């Protein structure tokens, strides 16, 4: 399933990440032409396993996922 960047969606994603993880660094990209990639660096990730780091990101984007507005995204997380 493909999902490319749509400026409105990008804004929504950035807003939600900023709210859930204040101070986090966020990079969004769809340069592979097929899927969106979201990279988040946050202090809150420290000590967490990758699965749990990604869960925090998914949680922040919960309403977008529930509505189907967002359905496919590659996540990369790193502790700041």
């Amino acid at each position: 399933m493909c999902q490319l960047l749509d400026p409105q969606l990008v804004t929504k994603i950035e807003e939600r990440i900023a709210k859930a993880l204040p101070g986090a660094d966020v990079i969004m990209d769809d340069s592979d032409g097929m899927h969106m990639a979201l990279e988040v660096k946050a202090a809150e990730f420290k000590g967490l396993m990758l699965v749990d780091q990604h869960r925090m990101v998914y949680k922040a984007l919960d309403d977008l996922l529930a509505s189907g507005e967002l359905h496919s995204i590659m996540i990369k997380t790193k502790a700041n």
Partner: protein
Amino acid sequence: MVSAELKKKIEGLIKENRVFVFMKGTPEQPMCRFSMAVEQILHGMDVDFAGYNILEDEEMRQGIKEYTNWPTLPQVFIEGKFVGGADIIAELAENGELKKLLPKS
């Protein structure tokens, strides 16, 4: 809510198979770029895995997401434990961690 029956089915599958992937398509024929990425990584490491094609089962497609509290597919289980999706598997493969998690064949 995941029905008790579905939960039992999921737990049976992940316990009976050392590496199990809920995916779009099959291990022989993945049908989505992310599922294919997982298949290529695992087969590239000579790891055999069993898969469940959620494209053919809407109940499982929704149920597994609720069960793991994870909104996307594919979902990879190793030795009965949820490890993550395609992006996590790729990262673990890259940093050498995946090899440590895999059962010695």
